[in-house]
Every structure is written in structure tokens, then in C-alpha cells.
């Protein structure tokens, strides 16, 4: 698994980068984990319903939020600086071809990562929607795409994200409170540090080796 730290990167540029890695992995290259942040962006998944954007497009512009269609599952979600976004490019042909198991492992990675900050989080199972939750609030949203059994898109974890921005939408189509590591703990670690922590948990949960040079 190659670990790629992209820093703050435009959403569409990250999508293109993911597709490049997907082609490489389909051709036999090792998988990759892209870690990044995005400028303020609303992304519309394939289950998007227009009523889940709660404000007029003019107001989105005022907030400096761009809107992008995304070829992932799920409804609308928000990315913004302070949110750690992880895009694993994984060949599921070698990992049981099971989307549910993959989604659970990605959520488990996030649960384990949050424990490093003293946060006891849970996966969204049973009556809760998928994602990662702390009490009744959602801290991470998940949505993936798969081509030739190679994954792209992934999970966004709110570290220091401006939570006010979520009032622009019904996140994932749910009436739900969003939370962040900063809100829960007061901590605001650098994104490079938290990216490394996340990568470590990812490698362990997915039983993968780091092939980064």
C-alpha cells in the first residue's frame, strides 16, 4: 500500500488523481491510500436529493462553497479544511469482493483512529446510518465507488472542521448533528500528524504493508 499525502487539494483534482491510481491498481500496482483536505465543497453522491441542500446557490457562493457531482454512493456531504479525507484505492478482488466488509473496515479504521484522541466512537450499524458516530452525533461520513473491484472515494473525518457549514445541508440526507475531534476534545493537531496516525491504523486494519518510498 502506498501512502500519499496530498495536503489541501481541490476536490476535482483529487478525483482525477484517484482515477489515475485506480488505473494503476487495475494494472497490477500496489494499492494506495490518499490522504488530503479539500476547500469548502459540497459533493453530491448518486443518492442525492435536492431538498438536502437547505440554502439557495447564492448563499453557497457567499460561503465560498463549490458544488461537485461525485460518482460515489450516498447523498450530499460537505468537505472543508480541517476534515481529514481518506481515499483508499484497494483491489477487492484480493480481499473477498465484499463491499459491506470493506465499508466496515474503513469505519473500523476511523473508530480506532479516534480512540487515539480519547474518543469512543461507533460504526453506523443497525438502526444508525453508515459512517462513524459519537453518541448521537456523526463524526465521519463514508461513500465509495468501485470499478473492476478497485475502490475509490472513501471517508471524511471531522477534525477541526467548521461545523456551522453543515447547517447548509442535511448531511447524507439525515437530520443529524455533526461533531468533530476539536468539538469533543478541544484538540487541534496538525493534519500531517493526524494523517500519519490514520495511515497507521489503516495499514493495521487492512493487514497491509507500507510500500511508500
Amino acid at each position, binding site marked *: 500500500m502506498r501512502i500519499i499525502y496530498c495536503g489541501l487539494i481541490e476536490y476535482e483534482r483529487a478525483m482525477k488523481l484517484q482515477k489515475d491510481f485506480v488505473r494503476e491498481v*487495475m494494472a497490477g500496482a500496489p494499492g494506495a491510500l490518499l490522504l488530503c483536505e479539500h476547500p469548502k465543497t459540497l459533493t453530491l*453522491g*448518486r*443518492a442525492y436529493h435536492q431538498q438536502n441542500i437547505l440554502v439557495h446557490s447564492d448563499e453557497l457562493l457567499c460561503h465560498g462553497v463549490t458544488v461537485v457531482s461525485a*460518482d*460515489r*454512493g*450516498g447523498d450530499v456531504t460537505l468537505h472543508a479544511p480541517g476534515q481529514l479525507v481518506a481515499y483508499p484505492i484497494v483491489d477487492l478482488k484480493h480481499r473477498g*469482493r*465484499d*463491499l*459491506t*466488509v*470493506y*465499508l466496515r473496515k474503513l469505519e473500523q479504521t476511523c473508530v480506532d483512529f479516534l480512540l487515539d484522541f480519547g474518543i469512543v466512537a461507533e460504526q453506523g450499524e443497525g438502526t444508525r446510518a*453508515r459512517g462513524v458516530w459519537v453518541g448521537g452525533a456523526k463524526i465521519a461520513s*463514508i*461513500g*465509495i*465507488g*468501485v*470499478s*473492476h*473491484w478497485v475502490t475509490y*472515494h472513501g471517508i471524511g473525518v471531522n477534525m477541526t472542521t467548521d461545523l456551522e457549514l453543515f447547517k447548509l445541508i442535511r448531511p447524507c440526507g439525515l437530520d443529524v448533528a455533526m461533531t468533530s475531534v476539536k468539538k469533543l476534545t478541544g484538540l487541534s493537531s496538525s493534519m500531517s500528524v493526524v494523517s500519519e496516525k490514520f495511515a497507521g491504523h489503516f495499514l493495521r486494519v487492512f493487514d497491509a504493508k507500507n510500500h511508500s518510498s
Partner: protein
Amino acid sequence: MLKIILPDLGDGITQAKIVHWNFQEGQRVSPEDDVVELVTDKAVFNVPAPAEGGVIKKIYYKEGQEAPVGSVLADLV
């Protein structure tokens, strides 16, 4: 005759909704192509063309329809 079948996508997933056919009846698909995009709760899944490729003879599910896992999505010749 070759068939494009909705594969088992994993634990608890019994069906998926057709989002978009990237090819229409009469068009040739190659092994590297994603033929049809499907969506489940949190995943978009692109069904690949079979290794042999072929020409799409008949499509069985329209965009917006739900298809059960294991169903034939299209015939190829």
C-alpha cells in the same frame, strides 16, 4: 451467449439500483470497460465487461430500476 450478471456485492446486499448504462444495445464492450453503474446504500459499483468482451444484444433493467443480486443485466453476443 455471454451474460452480464450482477455479482454478489457482499454481506446483506440483496439488490442495487441501475444508475447509468455506459453502453446501449448494439454497442461493443471491451474487457476494460465499465458497462453499467449501479448504486447501493453507500457504494457506486461499476459492473465490468466480461473478459471476452462482445456486443450488447439485450438490456434487461432500465436506469432507475432495482436489480437483484445474481440477475442477468444484459446479454452479449
